[in-house]
């Protein structure tokens, strides 16, 4: 169980007293005592601004942690401020979905549009390690054409950098994180070397997909996973134990097998002198008269504190990063902060099998196919990949309720066959669209800050891709012997809300992650992607993170010499 303090923090990030819109109800509720205590920020004097550090990093997820380590290793004085708590996974992480709810970013976000995005356990985490605490740890590389969507299709955006800029970082990451995968990997350009560890074993769903795809002539391969298939050692990090196939990656890995940031880049950063402060929620970014960032103000255990810095790295994720910029009216000249919001089409398809699947065992993302990267019969731009999925029972049950609308005896009967159920899903590209964006709403959260409202509607390209994917997956699951097939429409990951580009006219940061508007502000997280990519994002976010740090360090060196 999380300790007392973490539970308290959990309470703090939740909207304790939601604003009531209905006037009658507001009156009714006013007579009631407040439900829980919200710690009030104290007007304590802020520490004197003597303690300036070289860099402050906001957020310790896929975007923040790698660059934190890189900057510390270069000898800079760096402090990371992380809104969530620091966990002790071995002691605290239960193999239980409800008990692990503290891993998610549970502050309420408002989901608007025709296909409202679900957040919380479907989308974002908090704590030292960020969303990598609960990612599934799929770590495919992009293919080169992913970065040139506009050139290839005339829609979407090209990246201001190419595959060759990322490849060395992919290689470095694969070896540092200890990625388990097939060597050679069947898709994409040839590589300098293979994965450091052999693939993880296939579970039931992966075997079903493999069997069916073989019949249909679709190539598959064990996936690349950032979970170590054998004990693994890295300098500065130490030994990590092998994955025990407990299938709980999305609710936190309790044995350190999964390469979340808290067991990789964070210890590496700390070994090199970085300071990581947990439970620090940044609310303000302070500037001088020239508009340069001078420091940040944050809340820790109900106290308001300040940390001054020479350079700020904003890595709070694709919702909180634009939210902080909008709150602080910072870096807004392009008009693109919060816009170009994309979400990966993540359609899932489920079926029931005669065989025993027991979908709670094994790494959830066992098998992959990238044969649909550029389907020959596509009527859409971009492409998608196919993955088998394992699933935890509560997640599955809630999807059955929402997606199939089953209830009563029918719901209980259907879930009786949980052990015979297996699924596959896609992850595909998404195009930016004017209707999909993030804004600050009038509704306040428990900190008194406006809740973000996120608009999302699948446009024609996403609809066509989902339709194509449904046909493909249905064929596969029928060939695998599934009955009672149904689909669960879903979008995954929030992307693109502070995109990078060549010019400050239509982008927020340049190819190095540096803000066009503010020279000492860098952004690195899922918000800087100019296009969504047809692969899971985390490995590419980490690659950009290392690259952002390197470009920053090179620039510092040039300035100093």
């Amino acid at each position, binding site marked *: 169980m999380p300790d007392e303090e973490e539970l308290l923090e959990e309470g703090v990030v939740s909207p304790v007293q*939601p604003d009531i819109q209905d006037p009658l109800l507001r009156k009714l509720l006013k007579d009631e005592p407040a439900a829980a205590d919200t710690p009030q920020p104290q007007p304590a004097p802020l520490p004197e601004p003597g303690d300036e550090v070289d860099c402050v990093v906001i957020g310790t997820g896929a975007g923040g942690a790698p660059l934190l380590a890189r900057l510390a290793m270069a000898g800079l004085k760096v402090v990371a401020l992380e809104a969530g708590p620091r966990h002790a996974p071995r002691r605290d992480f239960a193999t239980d979905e409800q008990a692990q709810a503290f891993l998610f970013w549970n502050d309420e976000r408002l989901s608007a549009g025709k296909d409202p995005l679900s957040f919380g356990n479907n989308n974002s985490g908090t704590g030292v390690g960020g969303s990598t605490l609960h990612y599934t740890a799929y770590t495919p590389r992009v293919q080169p054409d992913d970065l040139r969507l506009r050139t290839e299709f005339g829609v979407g955006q090209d990246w201001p950098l190419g595959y060759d800029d990322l490849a060395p970082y992919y290689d470095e990451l694969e070896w540092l994180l200890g990625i388990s995968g097939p060597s050679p990997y069947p898709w994409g350009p040839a590589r300098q070397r293979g994965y450091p560890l052999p693939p993880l074993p296939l579970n039931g769903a992966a075997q079903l997909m493999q069997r069916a795809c073989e019949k249909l002539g679709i190539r598959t391969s064990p996936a690349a996973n950032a979970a170590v298939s054998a004990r693994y050692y890295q300098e500065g990090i130490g030994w990590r134990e092998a994955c*025990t196939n*407990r299938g709980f990656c999305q609710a936190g890995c309790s044995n350190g097998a999964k390469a979340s940031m808290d067991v990789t880049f964070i210890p590496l950063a700390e070994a090199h002198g970085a300071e990581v402060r947990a439970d620090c929620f940044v609310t303000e970014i302070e500037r001088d008269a020239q508009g340069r960032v001078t420091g940040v103000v944050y809340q820790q255990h109900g106290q308001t504190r300040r940390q001054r810095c020479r350079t700020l790295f904003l890595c709070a994720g694709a919702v909180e990063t634009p939210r902080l910029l909008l709150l602080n009216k910072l870096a807004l000249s392009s008009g693109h902060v919060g816009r170009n919001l994309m979400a990966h089409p993540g359609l899932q398809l489920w079926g029931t099998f005669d065989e025993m699947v027991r979908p709670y065992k094994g790494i959830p993302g066992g098998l992959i196919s990238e044969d649909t990267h550029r389907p020959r019969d596509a009527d859409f731009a971009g492409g998608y990949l196919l993955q088998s999925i394992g699933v935890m029972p*509560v997640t599955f049950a809630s999807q059955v309720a929402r997606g199939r609308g089953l209830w009563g005896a029918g719901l209980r009967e259907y879930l009786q066959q949980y052990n015979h159920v297996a699924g596959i899903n896609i992850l595909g590209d998404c195009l930016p669209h004017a209707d999909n964006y993030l804004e600050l709403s009038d509704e306040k959260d428990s900190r008194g800050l406006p809740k973000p409202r996120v608009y999302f509607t699948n446009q024609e390209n996403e609809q066509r891709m989902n339709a194509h994917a449904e046909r493909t997956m249905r064929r596969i699951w029928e060939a695998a012997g599934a009955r009672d097939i149904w689909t669960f429409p879903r979008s995954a990951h929030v992307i693109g809300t502070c995109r990078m580009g060549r010019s400050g006219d239509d982008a927020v940061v340049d190819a190095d992650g540096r803000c066009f508007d503010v020279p000492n502000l860098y952004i690195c997280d899922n918000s800087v992607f100019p296009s969504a990519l047809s692969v899971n994002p985390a490995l590419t976010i980490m690659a950009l993170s290392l690259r952002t740090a390197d470009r920053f360090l090179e620039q510092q060196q040039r300035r100093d010499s």
Partner: protein
Amino acid sequence: MKYPPGTVRALLESPHVSEATRAALQERLDAPPYQPQFFDADTYRLLGAVCARLLPQPDRPAGAIDLPAGIDERLHSGKADGWRYDALPPDREAYRLGLGGIQQAAQAQFGREFAALAAAEQDAVLQAVQAGTAPGDLWLKVDAPRFFEELLAEATILYYSHPLAQEEIGYVGMADLPAWTRIGLDTREDREPEEVN
């Protein structure tokens, strides 16, 4: 019953379950009777009647898994799960309006309170809410299908988080120590229960 009763309780006593996992599940098994803190007594009874249709438990006449308790407790504490349909008012308001709407619909369709209706009539009311066709002006303030989806999802999550419901579907993922080694199709480890027909 497709899986033998008692599997999960037995596993909780075994070394296959970690301390943190055992603590979480045991707490749910041992939960004392709950007194509502957020809803008034009438609304709480109504919520109970609704949950009994969403996840009927005729097989547990004495000890049904208490779903209204979890909902009341969450609304009381103000905990959120990270998001909300923009089409719905904040959770507390949505629940009061939605439950009020169910009561209105029951009156309009059958001339009686929801709790006094026969099971089939209750189902007819809930079907109308799910389909967005339920009568009543409260539904002008709260989107009926979205409210129903949220209520159903929350009740379902509470139900399947309970060790006995997990036992019912043959889930024993909580017993993951020291490791799962037999993970392929039609393979089973000794501690995993077999289906009984």
